């Protein structure tokens, strides 16, 4: 219990420092966050045209369902990159030898590495998800509950997927492209109705690339009120996070220091 408290304290400390650094350049922060919100809104326009002009359901989802998966994906990804802003830079940190700095720190290497940076545009993603949910689901308590579940588990899953993909660098060398592709795959599988994909892809979405656990299962629970599925979401998230953690440390044993001297300010 004290370990959990210790690491929660560490994460909140990183969060405060990162936020203070971001607010130092307030205009930049606001422009980037607002720009990201506008950017995401264009996709709603696409779906609005698709549903209004074509009508009916697409892949078993109606317009509200699509907005729900968009709001969860957007907020979950936003939250992941706000707290764990280095999740897209792990390979670069390993390859350049910057990892040495984190190895010397007294706390968990992976956690320190992930939380040492934040993303400014991610705030736009996070708020966009909230706005979309308010507009599309109103006061539906089931939708809000499942949104919260999806955002928390989803942010952990996005991070776990990034960690797993980037950890391949320890074994195969620079995997920047592979890692960005892996995240791109998950995001793409999250923002379109699951029903449009063939069975094989749906199987992948429940296993290798767990997009179904991030958005599609929470949506299914909100609509069917089958809360037993929450356990499945939690088990899937825990399993994937543990695997990512184990895989990172397995790879870390192969890391060789380049004796890089850097200053973190």
């Amino acid at each position, binding site marked *: 219990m004290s370990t959990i408290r210790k690491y929660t304290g560490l994460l909140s400390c990183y969060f405060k420092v990162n936020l203070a650094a971001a607010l130092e350049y307030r205009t930049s922060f606001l422009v980037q966050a607002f720009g990201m919100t506008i950017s995401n809104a*264009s996709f709603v326009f696409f779906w609005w045209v*698709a549903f209004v002009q074509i009508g009916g359901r697409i892949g078993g989802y109606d317009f509200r369902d699509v907005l729900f998966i968009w709001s969860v994906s957007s907020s979950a990804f936003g939250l992941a990159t706000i707290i764990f802003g280095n999740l897209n830079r792990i390979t670069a940190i390993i390859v350049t030898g910057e990892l040495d700095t984190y190895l010397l720190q007294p706390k968990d290497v992976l956690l320190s590495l992930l939380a040492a940076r934040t993303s400014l545009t991610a705030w736009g993603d996070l708020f966009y998800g909230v706005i979309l949910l308010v507009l599309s689901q109103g006061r539906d308590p089931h939708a809000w509950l499942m949104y919260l579940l999806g955002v928390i588990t989803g942010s952990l899953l996005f991070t776990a997927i990034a960690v797993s993909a980037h950890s391949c660098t320890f074994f195969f060398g620079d995997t920047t492209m592979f890692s960005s592709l892996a995240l791109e795959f998950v995001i793409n599988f999250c923002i379109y109705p699951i029903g449009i994909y063939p069975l094989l892809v749906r199987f992948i979405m429940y296993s290798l690339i767990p997009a179904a656990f991030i958005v599609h299962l929470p949506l299914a629970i909100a609509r069917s009120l089958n809360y037993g599925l929450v356990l499945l979401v939690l088990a899937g998230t825990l399993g994937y996070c543990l695997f990512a953690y184990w895989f990172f440390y397995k790879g870390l044993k192969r890391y060789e220091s380049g004796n890089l001297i850097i200053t973190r300010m």
Partner: protein
Amino acid sequence: MKSIVKYSGIARQSLLNAIQYPANIISRLLMYSLFISVFFCLWGAIYQGGEVHGYSLVQMIWYLCFTELIVFCCRTTVYTQMNDDVKSGAIAYLLVRPCHYIIFQFFQSLGELCVNLVAFGSYAIVLALTYVGVLEGFSFYNMPYILISFILGITLNFFMLISLGLTAFIWEENTGFYFVYQKLIFMLGMFIPLEFLPVWLQSIARMLPFSYVAWAPARLAVAYSSEFRDQVLPLQFLWVFASVWLAVFCYSRAVLHIQGQGG
């Protein structure tokens, strides 16, 4: 003559750079395949047969392959490059070179554009053929016009990005403009043909340059007609001239904001 040699040298160097990193091209080919596969699944689910707003499923997939080719594959790093040049101060070194900054940027990107157009263009055709087969009614006699339309679309996009990049001279934080521009391109033709939009929006979109980047060339390729060709090609030429003028105008204004501080 000297200028031709000078700028063609820059273009050649950019071409060699683009070929030097095949892994970069391969990763973008994979990304392109992902987008097209997702859209294929999506539009396959939407189309229950027949046509929507004059487009069959086959035409729609070819349309998306072409719009993604123009916007995603034939994009260059000119916007981020110019932003970096201004913010890092590297602009000071570029401005003293014996060449015009805008023309330098154009030829610097030309090699990369050519490689992208050839590599992704061939791949787009292979991908579309694999997914939906041959495009009905397509004739090779129309190819020169379609190719001109594609080149005009890519050029228009390029000079619009240059103008946006130049705003970094005035407003240091200009990412917001880029986001808005990018989404206008997405909404007005890249993801969905203009014909799918509400009528009032279609008429506005036809008056703006954004839909002439992706919609006009892709529509010409998938549903060729001489009437449409005569309608869009002059407009594309017009918008390209306007975008070049805008880039040169922005540049002449932007350089006034430079402050050099030794070093």
